């Protein structure tokens, strides 16, 4: 599919295109098969009574999620969000404008759930659910990476991600699941991680990495697995075990724990930080997937839970783990207390690896030599879900300052990209939210355009040659997509890849 994709032209500035209706209607992610759908408890082909079931599910979600109810009511069609989505900017398809993506559901909501939509459907743009609308949902709810950029700019904070999640949940309930996300949700629950990497293979991989590190540095840095009584449980995306450049960051984490003398362990049961339950908007699934981490923490008796470089994982960990699994503080129910009494209350739970490393450097507990990265001129891409759905540190905006502080501590040459494309205004890499699949390569390449435009500018102006990231999806997406725009894939890597180079192990 990628072969016939037209690569958009990179201009000096991000340009708002004239709308091209239907430009991306062809983009259809592969549907999920029988095995996965049944495992997740969904039908595997379109059910006969899809209209009734979809409307019933929508009603159910409207009663459970205030966000959905308020967001479907409150939009005034002001247009503030229309030029904010990277998929619109890259494709010009008007249904990729956040408001239009929401309207795909809002038109149906109005028809079945509001008096004006029932009485005057034409006047308020209300429509009964049809096959065409369902197909539109499937197409365009899989062209949204749930990055929340629109929610920053909406005067009422309407978050299209909430609508997309509800849309995918309804689609699943009528038998229209997406292969990529749902297969991963099955794998993580059956095997323990998104890549489907079984325990023994993981053990082998870690042993191999230990040999590599020792050969490289002469220091026996360990990557422990399932060690009971370790202080820290590290939960990281499974891509860190296997993929380049992800694995370089894993080596970085290991070196940090080694240098600081902190005992730590990975878990074969919870060998995955990513939680695709988020993408599908199913609370129960997200909870089941997250519960693996609680179980591993209780089983291993750890005092701290630290999360590796992963954007959506950090959203779920930071914002939802306490709610879903009691990993955090403040719960006074037996379920929460069981875990809390085991945790070390001197540390935030969960903690991001960047918080941990940055604190250690500031406290002088690990030493670094930033000149080790002098061959690099670095810029940092704020991952969407870290930027707009989580925090690091104690102050609002710590998710922006802490990674930058850390980069500046371990490297000397750093430049930010265009201020309109970083911090809370950051663009998604183009592969988030369940879109990191080859069958959506067209969407991914075009969706990366705004970020590539800003990157190109700093490459030209400051000779930037390294794009630092803290997300497994960003790393995989940019490694694949940047070469299409003429960049070398080796310019992509994690912050802990930089830490790994600069850290002093003796």
């Amino acid at each position, binding site marked *: 599919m990628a072969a016939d994709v037209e690569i958009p032209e990179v201009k000096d500035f991000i340009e708002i295109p004239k709308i091209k209706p239907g430009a991306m209607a062809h983009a259809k992610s592969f549907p999920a098969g029988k095995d996965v759908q049944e495992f997740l408890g969904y039908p595997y082909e379109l059910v006969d009574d899809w209209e009734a079931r979809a409307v019933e599910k929508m009603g159910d979600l409207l009663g459970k999620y205030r966000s959905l109810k308020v967001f479907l009511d409150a939009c005034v069609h002001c247009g503030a969000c229309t030029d904010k989505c990277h998929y619109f900017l890259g494709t010009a398809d008007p249904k990729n404008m956040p408001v239009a993506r929401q309207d795909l559901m809002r038109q149906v909501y109005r028809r079945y759930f509001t008096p004006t939509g029932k009485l005057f459907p034409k006047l308020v743009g209300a429509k009964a659910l049809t096959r065409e609308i369902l197909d539109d949902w499937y197409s365009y709810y899989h062209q949204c990476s749930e990055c929340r950029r629109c929610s920053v700019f909406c*005067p009422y904070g309407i978050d299209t991600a909430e609508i997309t999640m509800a849309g995918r949940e309804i689609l699943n309930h009528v038998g229209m699941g997406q292969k990529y996300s749902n297969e991963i949700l099955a794998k993580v629950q059956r095997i323990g991680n998104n890549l489907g990497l079984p325990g023994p293979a993981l053990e082998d991989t870690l042993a191999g990495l230990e040999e590599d590190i020792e050969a490289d540095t002469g220091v026996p840095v360990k990557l422990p697995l399932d060690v009971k009584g370790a202080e820290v449980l590290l939960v990281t995306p499974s891509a860190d075990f296997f993929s380049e450049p992800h694995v370089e960051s894993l080596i970085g984490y290991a070196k940090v724990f080694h240098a600081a003398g902190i005992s730590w362990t990975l878990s074969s049961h919870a060998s995955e930080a990513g939680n695709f339950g988020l993408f599908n908007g199913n609370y129960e699934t997200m909870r089941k997937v997250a519960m693996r981490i609680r179980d591993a923490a209780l089983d291993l008796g750890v005092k701290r839970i630290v999360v590796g470089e992963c954007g959506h994982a950090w959203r779920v960990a930071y914002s939802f783990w306490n709610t879903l699994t*009691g990993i955090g503080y403040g719960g006074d129910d037996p379920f929460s207390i069981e875990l809390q009494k085991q945790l070390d209350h001197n540390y935030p739970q969960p903690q991001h690896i960047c918080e941990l490393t940055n604190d250690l450097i500031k406290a002088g507990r690990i030493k670094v030599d930033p000149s080790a990265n002098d061959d690099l001129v670095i810029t940092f891409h704020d991952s969407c879900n870290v930027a707009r759905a989580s925090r690091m540190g104690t*102050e609002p905006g710590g998710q922006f300052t802490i990674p930058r502080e850390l980069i500046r501590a371990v490297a000397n040459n750093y430049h930010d990209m265009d201020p309109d494309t970083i911090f809370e205004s950051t663009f998604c890499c183009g592969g988030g939210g369940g879109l990191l699949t080859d069958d959506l390569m067209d969407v991914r390449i075009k969706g990366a355009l705004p970020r590539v435009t800003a990157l190109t500018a700093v490459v030209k102006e400051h000779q930037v040659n390294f794009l630092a990231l803290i997300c497994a999806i960003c790393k995989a997406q940019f490694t694949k997509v940047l070469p299409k725009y003429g960049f070398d894939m080796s310019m992509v890597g994690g912050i802990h890849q930089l830490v790994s180079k600069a850290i002093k192990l003796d």
Partner: protein
Amino acid sequence: MSTLTIIYATVFYAATALLLLGLGYKVYDYSRTPAPLKIPTTPAPTTRAGVVYRLAKETVVFESLFKSNKWIWLFGWLFHAGLFLVLARHLRYFTQPVWFWVDIIQPFGKYASLMMVVGLAGLLARRFVVDRVRYISTPSDYLMLVLLLFIGLTGMLMTFVAHTDIVALKAFFMGLMYFDVQPVPADPILLAHLSAVALLMVIFPVSKLLHAPGLYFSPTRNQVDDPREHRHVAAWAARLEETR
């Protein structure tokens, strides 16, 4: 009592009831619907007071819209600020004696109608001119602006061009408030103005005008960013823990 007065008195009693009941129901419905997850758009305030400040900024200066698009912000803010002053000025027709601050803002309120109309005209123009906004506009989006413009322009006509019998009008509304119905002045411009206002009151709780209460119930804006420190569980979600 004239038929005209009976019609207008009935219309305003009905419109007021629908507005209050409809809005009351919506607010009740929003408040009883749980928000099971912490989803503030970050960076977000870490305290309740911070959230109040965030919402106050959204209400008074439309902070997010300002970040988003200066034209929509300008027209939107002109309209809303103008409408606020105009409405405040109108309190003189519903109070006896007139509150002192309502007296003070009278001149501002008169000219604020201009802000209001300019803002509305700008918003309407955007619906025709900007291709993206034209694409998302439904008939009701245009009609809502036309209705508000009609209210603004008929009001301005009475303020600046053809004065209506404002003393009689005040007697009519004070009468309605004290259930002692007085005749409504039979001025066609006034009657058109009042009819449009009554229509606006009726559609408020069943239309996108719900953005007004919606803002304060929006979880991305009204939640405190403290998920690691405080456990947040909705009642329906807490039941999942009983089975485990």
